[in-house]
């Protein structure tokens, strides 16, 4: 590793490795747990890289020797006569890079700009469902303990395909026909970060109340999910929830070891 014998090159190498790890490595982590991979948003990549860069600057400068060593190649390129070519390349490349980045940021695009969303909503302790108060805390799917699971599952399947399909998709992956039109996008149930993280009562709350039922803390956003309590019965919702878990192979969080604090979307 002769190449890595100066602090400057080491720092550069760490930065490159960090970038590769963050931008390409992190997407490989979810599959280890059997979840679909997902890219890291650019804003987060930038934030992480800036943190790493700050750390690197601290490292190269917390010791006098290293700091001098680190600065030497930079100084050399800037002043030494025999590095004229490198200097010229640098003097052209840096402005071009800056210009390119700036252009990339201001060029007209068809996609909407990144949207901010506030903190995830916390579920209420109880809701009113079609006129009855339901305690969400500790609530289990009642269909799991009565009747045949298969029958419920069939009902759930029917309900899903009649109502949920257009947005949440044939594969329950949030890629239905209309999905690309919505922001926030419909939930991908296959993702381990969604229903697998939630209790069934939380899912029930979100299905029953939909976008309009989001608490004010969840703003600003504009989920297009309808409030299904107006269209479905409680049993239909419970059975479609059953179907979601059965079909994706996920297990709901149970109350003994799970918190329903994390939100959806």
């Amino acid at each position, binding site marked *: 590793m002769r190449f890595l014998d100066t602090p400057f090159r080491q720092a550069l190498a760490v930065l490159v490795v960090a970038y590769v790890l963050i931008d390409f490595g992190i997407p490989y982590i979810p599959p280890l747990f059997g979840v679909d991979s997902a890219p890291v948003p650019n804003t987060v990549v930038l934030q*992480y890289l800036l943190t790493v860069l700050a*750390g690197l600057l601290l490292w190269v400068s917390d010791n006098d020797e290293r700091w001098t060593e680190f600065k030497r190649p930079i100084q050399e390129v800037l002043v030494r006569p025999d590095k004229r070519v490198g200097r010229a390349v640098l003097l052209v490349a840096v402005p071009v890079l800056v210009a390119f980045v700036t252009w990339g940021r201001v060029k007209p695009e068809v996609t909407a700009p990144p949207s901010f969303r506030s903190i995830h909503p916390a579920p209420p302790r109880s809701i009113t469902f079609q006129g009855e108060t339901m305690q969400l805390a500790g609530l289990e799917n009642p269909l799991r303990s009565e009747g045949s699971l298969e029958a419920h599952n069939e009902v759930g399947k029917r309900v899903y395909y009649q109502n949920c399909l257009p947005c949440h998709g044939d594969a329950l992956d949030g890629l239905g026909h209309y999905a690309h039109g919505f922001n926030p996008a419909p939930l991908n149930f296959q993702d381990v970060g969604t229903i697998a993280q939630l209790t069934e009562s939380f899912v029930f709350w979100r299905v029953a109340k939909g976008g309009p039922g989001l608490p004010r803390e969840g703003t600003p956003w504009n989920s297009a999910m309808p409030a299904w309590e107006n269209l479905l019965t409680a049993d239909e919702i419970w059975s479609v929830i059953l179907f979601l878990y059965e079909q994706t192979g996920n297990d709901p969080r149970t109350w003994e070891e799970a918190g329903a604090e994390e939100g959806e979307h």
Partner: protein
Amino acid sequence: MRSLIGALAALVLLAEPALAQEAARRYGDFPVIGSRAAVWVAAQLHLFFAAFVLGVPMFAVVAEVIGIKSGEERFDKLAKEFTRLLLVSYSATAVWGAVLVFALVTLYPGVWTYLAEIFDVSMWVYVGIFFFESATLYLYYYGWDLWKEGRAKWFHWGLGILLNLWGTTVMFIANSWLTYMMSPPAEVTPDTAPGMVQFWSAFANATWMPINIHRLIANVVFGGAIVGAYAAYRFLMAETDEERAHYDWMGYIGNFVAISALIVLPFAGYWLGREIYEFNQQMGITMMGGFMSWLWIVQAFLIGVLFLTGNYYLWVGMGRIPGAERFQPYTKYMLVVLVLGVIVWATPHSMIASRDEISAMGGQFHPFLGVLGVMSAKNTAVNLMILTTFLSFLLYRRANKEPVVGWAGRGTMVQGALFGIAALVVLFYGVYGYFVPAIVRIGFSVYQVLAVLSTIVAVVVLDVLMLRGATSRGEIRWGQMPPRSQYALFILAVTFTWLMGLMGFARSGIRQHWHVFEVMRDTSVDAATPALGYASVVISVCVLIFLGMVAFIFWVGGLAEKPIITKAARGEGPHAALQPAGGD
């Protein structure tokens, strides 16, 4: 001074109660920036100076008593130099206090009259104490060389204590006025005439004590940070090695005081937050989950900067300690822990992402990073960062020492084990937190903090015992510090000052459109509470004015300065520097 004017103004206005009622609906108008910003800037600057003026005497007396006990003259000199800074900042505090009072009287006469009618007596007392405080300060500073020996020295030290008592009392009184605006007692309604408000219940209101304690600690942090920046400036401008050595040492102590006090500050903040929730749910929700929730993201960013910079200063400082090269290879691992900590600590739960990214992620949660965005991960990160910072201090302290006690090897292993156990406890509860309901999880943060704090205490005790009579590998070469480290001190001071302004905005902003929460409504044009972006601009301007004035005042103070360093202030005793003011 400011209170004198205040009391006078109050008297004039009180003479005509009918007029006062009329005034309740009147507001002045300040050109260009508006009334709100004018009062905001005046109050913030007054508070910056006041915090400095209250924080510094605390460690001045501690430095003085260390000097008396150890017989080391440089501590005495340090205390005296602190006091000199105090003297020159004192008038700035009073000036800004006067500006604040005039701003209130002219721009918010209604509010002022209302408060004056309730707090008139305490305002008079305030003025009185202010006189005594000034007198004590002058005696303390100008009597320094007079009462130098024996019992007279102790008398002089007693004056320092008295100075602190006056200062603290003054702050407690003023705190009651502003906490009353936040949390007036329940029996006060919009219809209650101010004259009918029970004085003591208004004075000792729900958030008074939490704010007192919170400010007391924060003043120490702030004072330490500003002293550090002052020392850094003098260091950079120094012309002789003696000066450099002295100010290097002073900067180290300022930084030490600031960081040590910072570690206990969150507990005071927690208490304050709990009192706010108990006083009024709505207020608490507004603060943590309502329109202010993004403020805590900014706070997280600032705290990340504090951790990185504070550790960096220590690591660079190791370069001037013989024997520190033993430990320097480890700093990069600590840096890795800190950088990872900051990354986790600042990971947003829901990401800012474009439409394409959101659809690729399947929602605004990232399947992996979303896991890092929740409380469990953040508590774990911050506790590990505290632990790492403490380790930095420990290595710094140990750098040039060679323990002589027989059990030193075992002792070090026990210390290491304690660190390991604390880190494991923190990690265990951090990971376990994902598998329990939120209610249980909140309790976990207490265990994590307790593990860290008890480790800190136990390790310090062990360390003190272990290093008894330790031999030295050489004295700290005070003054041989690269300028980079001094810029770190500047960044620390700016960050602390800015953070103070930000938290002040949070405290004051949660009242929303009320002068006195749910009692006296703000009907002015500026009633709406501004967004964070605007607030940050005002805070930055305040910090800039403050630092500019401090620079000017210290420069002026330095003009008439007798050379405070006579001989070499460096290295009188190997371990002296490691028992700094306010430390052990």
